[in-house]
């Protein structure tokens, strides 16, 4: 038995760890103490009804949203939101903390959110060049490799509105990859797509999982969750109600709420 610090109990060390994260909008308590651990290289699928807080949770992980309390750790960065932002200079410190959290991850949005005034390749290199200060030529070369990989190299100089939804989302994924993050966050990446375009995006995500990317994927694609995710987290009313391997959470859920949700997704009629 190894005693190296990397072999914590229960397997690989957590790349992402969420402890007691809460978030309210006014009176609406959207996240009620969420805990979540994701190991390096692991894919976690997050499922749950609309309005249960999945998007808010993802946004809290990369500093797009500020939790009211709780600790979010990604890689070497750890932010305790209960204390962050308090005292003199607290607001600036909080923004900095959220910024360093954000540097650890990259997000793929439901509605792609590509920059419409920039070409495909400009979308991809914007972060690397403008924020990370990499050379334009180098960033372009890397971007072309990634675009080629998703079959969009010849669209490099097209504008987003000239692409199909599936193509736009693949650019969205390439834009996230180009940031070289530790963690990839997906918020219902295929929900806005026409059904026939969903497959390409899911296949790409499966390849990324096989390559060892650490991914948190909010999705309603149960088959994807079953085949690709190591763990499935069922979010209900702002809590992770149940989490475990897909065979358990999707196949033999412990909680009645999970059972109902999975049944409704599998048998909509």
């Amino acid at each position, binding site marked *: 038995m190894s005693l190296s610090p990397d072999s914590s109990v229960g397997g690989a060390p957590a790349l992402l760890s969420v402890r007691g994260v809460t978030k309210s909008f006014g009176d609406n308590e959207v996240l009620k103490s969420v805990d979540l651990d994701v190991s390096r290289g692991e894919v976690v699928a997050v499922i749950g009804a609309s309005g249960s807080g999945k998007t808010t949770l993802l946004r809290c992980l*990369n*500093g*797009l949203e500020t939790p009211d309390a709780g600790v979010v750790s990604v890689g070497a960065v750890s932010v305790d939101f209960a204390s962050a932002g308090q005292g003199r200079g607290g607001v600036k410190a909080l923004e900095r903390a959220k*910024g360093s959290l*954000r*540097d650890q991850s*990259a*997000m793929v*949005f439901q*509605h792609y*959110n*590509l*920059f*419409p*005034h920039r070409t495909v390749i400009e979308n991809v290199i*914007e*972060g690397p060049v*403008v*924020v*990370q200060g990499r050379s334009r030529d180098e960033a372009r070369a890397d971007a072309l490799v990634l675009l080629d990989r998703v079959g969009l190299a010849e669209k490099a100089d097209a*504008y987003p*509105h000239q692409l199909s939804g599936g193509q736009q989302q693949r650019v969205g994924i390439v*834009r*996230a990859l180009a*940031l070289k993050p530790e963690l990839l966050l997906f918020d219902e990446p295929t929900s806005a797509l026409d059904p026939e375009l969903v497959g390409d995006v899911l296949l790409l995500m499966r390849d990324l999982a096989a390559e060892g990317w650490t991914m948190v994927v909010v999705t309603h694609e149960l088959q994807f969750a079953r085949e690709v995710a190591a763990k499935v987290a069922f979010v209900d009313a702002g809590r992770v109600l149940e989490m475990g391997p897909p065979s358990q959470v999707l196949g033999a859920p412990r909680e009645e709420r999970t059972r109902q949700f999975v049944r409704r997704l599998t048998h909509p009629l």
Partner: protein
Amino acid sequence: MGIDWSLFWDSLGPLALAALVGTIPLALASFALGMVLAVGAALMRLSKNRLVSAIARLYISVIRGTPLLVQLFVVFYGLPSLGLVINPWPSAIIALSLNVGGYAAEVVRAAILSVDKGQWEAAYMVGMSRRTALRRVILPQAARVAVPPLSNTFISLVKDTSLASLILVTELFRKAQEIAAFTQEFMLLYIEAGLVYWVICLALSSGQMRLERRLDRHVAVA
């Protein structure tokens, strides 16, 4: 009573020159400064800091709620009584740019708000600060929305510069007044001045259309 065509043609040169060295530079300078004020005021207006936002609101309210002529007179004839004497040209530029800034601020603010929230999120996601997000992502898209109304603001401004004649700036209209006073041909000169304004505005409108087409090229019409 016929038209004195020879006076018409003789006056056209001086009037065109006054437009070229008076009206147009005055409009351009005031518009450029006014846009800086407008973007500043719009961002202040959108600030979470209530005091900052209130200052911008007050500025916009005062500018929109008072006549341009009053603003010009306060700067040129009013400030000297506080010991601040400003020459006609700088006075006109100050008053006109403050005026344009107040009107355009609301246009710029609306344009910034019209940009999809997802664009802010994507900008933050790739690691941008608020300032960088504004400069590289939000303002370029807001500009596209703001161009038509701002073009109209500019065309109004060109006509408004004629008020600067009342604080002794020799621009197109003042030149027309001078010639009219000298020749007593008021009707002819004022109509001729109007024609020159009209031609300038027609040229600007066609420029506006071309600019809008160019800006729309890369973006699907939403």
